[in-house]
């Protein structure tokens, strides 16, 4: 008889899509499921996600995947071999190094740059924007003026100047890119904060005696995260391109590190006769930043249908 008192067993899908979630976990999973359904309907976005996952896998298993050493070449027997040569799928560069192995290892540097820039720049922007939007008044005015000043800068040129002063190197390039990329996040976080700061739940938390610090940290900032993630993903391609540009100018990762932009710069001398040396890293950059753009577009459409250009 006990079976009757229980409701009919739901399929997992029905449980996820229920409009009366029984628990917080079910509500969260349900929302994630809906977002995923919207996202996965977009084939290009899924392709973008695939590219990024592939990048991560390649970066993790670069040691196992790479057939040769990324830094030590075979100067005697394998200089500037064309793609498809015996044992060198994408050819070799002027030092006799396997380009494929260098590309595989270079994915680590690319991943390092985007992860670190995101970790540094997004929280700065989030904090500045949330504080600015919640505090209002002169705090808001001052913080937003500073943000606008940085927004008025040409990003690449400012990053160039920073690296010029701090000295070339991948750490300094990352810092320079992070310094130049937080302002849009502050703008977004502020806009989101303004939409929630007068809502009832904030008033309720305030009545319960929460400090402004706690309100911003626990109740305002989480609301900004989803639109911030979309924006950061969309910016990833730009970050990769800026890092590659710095590398191309010799200001990013230093030799012999297999940074893709620096590899293009190194292949520039041979472009007329050994085109593959400069071409292959460029394709890698193009594919990865295309992946981030597709993923970002898909995320934006899935998380925020209002903002999509459809």
């Amino acid at each position, binding site marked *: 008889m006990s079976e009757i008192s229980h409701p009919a067993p739901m399929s997992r899908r029905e449980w996820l899509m229920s409009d009366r979630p029984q628990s917080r976990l079910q509500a969260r999973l349900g929302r994630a499921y809906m977002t995923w359904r919207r996202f996965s309907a977009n084939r290009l976005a899924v392709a973008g996600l695939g590219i990024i996952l592939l990048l991560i896998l390649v970066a993790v298993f670069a040691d196992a995947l790479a057939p040769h050493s990324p830094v030590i070449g075979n100067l005697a027997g394998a200089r500037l071999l064309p793609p498809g040569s015996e044992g060198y799928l994408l050819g070799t560069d002027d030092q006799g190094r396997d380009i494929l192995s260098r590309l595989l290892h270079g994915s680590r540097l690319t991943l390092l740059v985007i992860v670190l820039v995101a970790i540094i720049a997004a929280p700065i922007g989030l904090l500045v924007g949330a504080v600015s939007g919640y505090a209002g008044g002169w705090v808001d005015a001052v913080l937003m003026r500073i943000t*606008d*000043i940085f927004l*008025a800068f040409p990003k690449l040129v400012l990053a*160039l100047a920073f690296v010029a002063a701090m000295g070339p190197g991948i750490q300094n390039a990352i810092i320079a890119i992070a310094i130049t990329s937080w302002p849009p996040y502050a703008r977004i976080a502020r806009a989101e904060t303004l939409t929630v700061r007068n809502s009832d739940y904030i008033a309720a938390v305030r009545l319960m005696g929460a400090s402004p610090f706690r309100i911003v940290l626990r109740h305002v900032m989480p609301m900004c995260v989803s639109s911030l993630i979309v924006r950061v993903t969309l910016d990833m*391609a730009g970050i990769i391109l800026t890092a590659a540009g710095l590398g*191309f*100018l010799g200001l990013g990762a230093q030799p012999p590190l297999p940074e893709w932009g620096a590899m293009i710069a190194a292949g520039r001398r041979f472009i007329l006769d050994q085109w593959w040396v400069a*071409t292959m890293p460029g394709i890698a950059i193009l594919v990865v930043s295309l992946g981030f753009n597709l993923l970002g577009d898909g995320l934006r459409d899935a998380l925020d249908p209002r903002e999509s250009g459809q």
Partner: protein
Amino acid sequence: MTLPETTQLAGRRRARANGWAGNALRFLVIIVTTYLGLLAVTFFIGRVIPIDPVLAILGDRAPAHVVERTRELLGFNKPLYQQFYIYVRDALTGNFGTSVLTTNPVMADIRRVFPATLELATFGTIIGSLIGVPLGVLAAVKRGSIADQIVRVIGLVGYSVPIFWLALLSLLLFYARLKWVAFPGRIDIVYEYSFTPVTGLYLIDSAWQGQWDVFRDVFRHIILPASLLGYFSLAYISRMTRSFMLNELAQEYIVAARAKGLSESRIIWVHALRNAAVPLVTVIALSYAGLLEGSVLTETVFAWPGLGLYITNSLQNADMNAVLGGTIVIGSVFIAINILSDLLYRTLDPRTRAR
């Protein structure tokens, strides 16, 4: 008219005058603080980040008395706030110090190289707008079709491609293999001494002087870098045009125009595009500013003697005065374009006009 009415009217008029003055004042504050911020950041980069800016100039093997003299000469022994005051005062009069590399005042160098960048970026923006706007309109009108997808892919690739790499490959194809365009540079060495530029914009100068052989040569030099920059801005312009046009095509006045029996092309190109053009002006202005920046990498590949190449050359030689001077100039142009596009938007869009 009764007395209260007139006073009310006067009051409103005063309020409007206040509003106008207030707007102008706010604008002025924005310009001044942004520019001061720009200078503060470059000051920070040049004077605070290096452990000792004098050592950065002289190197660590200079004798002590030379270091002391240079420090005094450059005013680096004063407190930072005084240094900043002098820095701002100098920058406002266009004095960015002397370039270590060329031994010229940085401002003189920049004045020499700037027209080259201006010409390149302008030509690039023209190409980008002339192709990008029609592509965006096409994508919006044929929404969801193959044409829309193709435009989308063109734009996505434009967003994702490293421009210096595309520049290298296009040089390989169009210069080395097909021989359609000229060697990197701005003008052939044959004409370098027979041609005297006036404005520094070679295309205009040569056409003005009627030297058509020079004009053809200059065109063969500029067309490839300008097309690349144009592609760069096309990606942005076509995407924005599409979304603005979709917005306009969904409006009721379009339905009304169709009901009146207007031709579809007239509705699209005259009625809808005219309204979409207002925000588009801002987009094109911003992409123009973006090209000034994009030119840094493009100029390096094409050996284009503009501001970008000047900055990167100075970078390689640790010539900080030149780097920061170039940064300030590009930053100032950025600020100016931002403000101009804002003003233009306000005058073009009747809704934002003060009532």
